[in-house]
């Protein structure tokens, strides 16, 4: 008998010995919430600042300028981008732009000063940005290895709560939820930002 059969047999025995009762799942928690743009943005900004992320606001037209300034201010000269990033976004940036591909060995991403990507969806209530590996976000290693992640969030991709944000995801895509820079509270429960992920998270809210 295979171990699979053994474990399955045990589960069935257990449920025969103590028959369970059918359970209805009550879903009375809040779903399908909406909120005016300004309020959603304000809520998201409040949460991001609480996580010690740096937040920038921008219009669509100003975005190249805002990105260039943000990168200049932190002295980032060599920037990685996913292959599907909108070319115009870095049109004002005068440093070097490196387009990522699966053939680049992931450790080499450590030689970049930072990375600029788009995002799939955000959750205002928890200050969470969801990346799902689409062409404008790139593979997971790209937003993990460099020490600076500049992430562009469009206003129409901001949802109010977790259920609303999750509903917009495609389950099969590799998905990373980011809520501020990496942090640990392992030493005397004192929160320290920046352990293994990018130590600096800049979020540019567009629209």
């Amino acid at each position, binding site marked *: *008998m295979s*171990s*699979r*059969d053994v*474990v*399955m*047999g*045990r*589960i*069935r*025995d*257990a*449920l*025969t010995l*103590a*028959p*369970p009762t*059918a*359970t*209805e*799942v*009550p879903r*009375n*928690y*809040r*779903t399908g919430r909406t909120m005016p743009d300004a309020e959603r943005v304000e809520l998201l900004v409040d949460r991001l600042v609480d996580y010690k992320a740096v937040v920038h606001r921008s219009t669509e037209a100003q975005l190249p300028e805002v990105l260039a300034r943000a990168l200049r201010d932190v002295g980032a000269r060599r920037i990685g981008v996913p292959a599907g990033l909108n070319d115009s976004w870095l049109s004002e940036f005068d440093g070097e732009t490196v387009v990522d591909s*699966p053939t680049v060995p*992931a450790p080499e991403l450590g030689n970049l000063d930072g990375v600029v990507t788009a995002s799939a969806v955000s*959750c205002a*209530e*928890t*200050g969470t940005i969801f990346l799902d*590996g689409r062409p404008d976000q790139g*593979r*997971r*290693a790209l937003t*993990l290895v460099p020490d600076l992640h500049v992430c562009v969030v469009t206003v129409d991709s901001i949802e109010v709560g*977790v259920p609303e944000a*999750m509903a917009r995801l495609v*389950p*099969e895509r*590799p*998905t*990373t*939820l*980011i*809520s*501020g820079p*990496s942090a*640990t*509270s*392992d*030493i*005397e*429960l*004192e929160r*320290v930002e920046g*352990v*293994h*992920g990018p130590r600096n998270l800049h979020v540019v809210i567009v629209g």
Partner: protein
Amino acid sequence: MSGVSLGLPAVPPRAPEGVGFLRGTEKFPAAARHELANAQLRRNIGKATHTIRAKRLHVTGELPDWEDLRDAGAAIKTDVMSRLPELLEQLEAAVVARGGTVHWAADANEANAIVTDLVRATGSDEVIKVKSMATQEIELNEHLEANGIHAYETDLAELIVQLGHDKPSHILVPAIHRNRSEIREIFLREMADVDPDLDDNPKHLAAAARKFLRHKFMTVPVAISGANFGVAETGTLGVVESEGNGRMCLTMPQTLITVMGIEKVIPTYRDLEVFLQLLPRSSTGERMNPYTSMWTGVTPGDGPQDFHLVLLDNGRTAALADGVGRQALNCIRCSACLNVCPVYERTGGHAYGSTYPGPIGAVLTPQLAGMDGKDDPNSTLPFASSLCGACYDACPVKIDIPSLLVELRHQKVQKSGFGAEAAAMKAASVAMSSAKLFTLAQKAAGLGRVVAGKKGKISKLPPPLSGWTDARDIPAPPAQTFRQWWDSTEGRAAIAAARKDGDR
């Protein structure tokens, strides 16, 4: 459907003895005694649990639908346990369809062997690890080490525990019993290439860990993780973390091996919307933890190209066979119950002798590994509680831990009879049933003052009363009994005065 059942259903076996970390070497009262004597530990744990308690209350109070989320979470998990066979089959099929391989492990020995063979097949003698309770429970690191494979823990606290040749003492913050200066000493002693001028600032300590592990993340080709959940509907697995070491392990290596307890399966992707609200707020007291990774099998050109899921039983089906006890399998390992427990706060995690300490450990460990007779340390765990109920209030999936404790106490007594305490209670009921016997007994109790001596406490009584004093001190009896006082001049005067007061 597979697995032919022949004849009557048998009670599934507990986790095997002699492997894994589900049984301590001494009974809880004895272990608690020396843990309680450690003032440093009590200070650390007291401070930490109070800090995290306040944060949890703040962020759970923020949500008007918190109780609705708890109701949903509890019902989803209860539903999972009743449909486990079909959900696991569904999960397996979904993972395989996305290019992953699924292995089944009946117990710790089998899981360790499977993982060891998988690592061997890659040719690597090193693995990097994400913090995982399941691999702690089966003592995977030790097993790998014995087979010439070194496992690097990459969670900061797990690294502190590993470098300190120590055991974790908390589900969420395994090194909660260490303070910054102890951690600095461990790093200076155990970390290769550490800056000798390292101070005890947590920022600098975290930076030292970053530097130490960076090279490993970039070069070690195999990672081992646990899982917070596995979605049956889609085959999606999820790991919830803070530091980014999880993301590193789940992204950088070529091969990923995930060890998941069979109870961690959830039915639908949508159910994540409940647990991603319950878990971070209950666990770290944050609105959301910094990083959560979700992956479904293999994604070409992104992350590990070789993915293995090991589904672990190791006593879980034994717990499932108990209609009351199976509730413990609903646990999402948030650790909220530890942080509110007055017993845990004083003894710390090591006294429980298991990967799973605190209130949930007291109900989960005996069910996974059994309570074999009265000399088994696990048989003392259901008694490691004052039944105050704080854990039940804190639990995000509403596990009724106090009721489970009472049920397990009942099972223990059925199995191994009454202890000394029951004999003492019986004697007390005889003495209390007659005024004459009671007066005599009280007189005899006065002798206790002699036993207690100057410190006014009795710490050791002879058997059968030793059962009581093994776990607690008894204050010395008063110099005079109530009846003696009642009959004294002082007593009569006091009563007369009280009467006067009452007549006014």
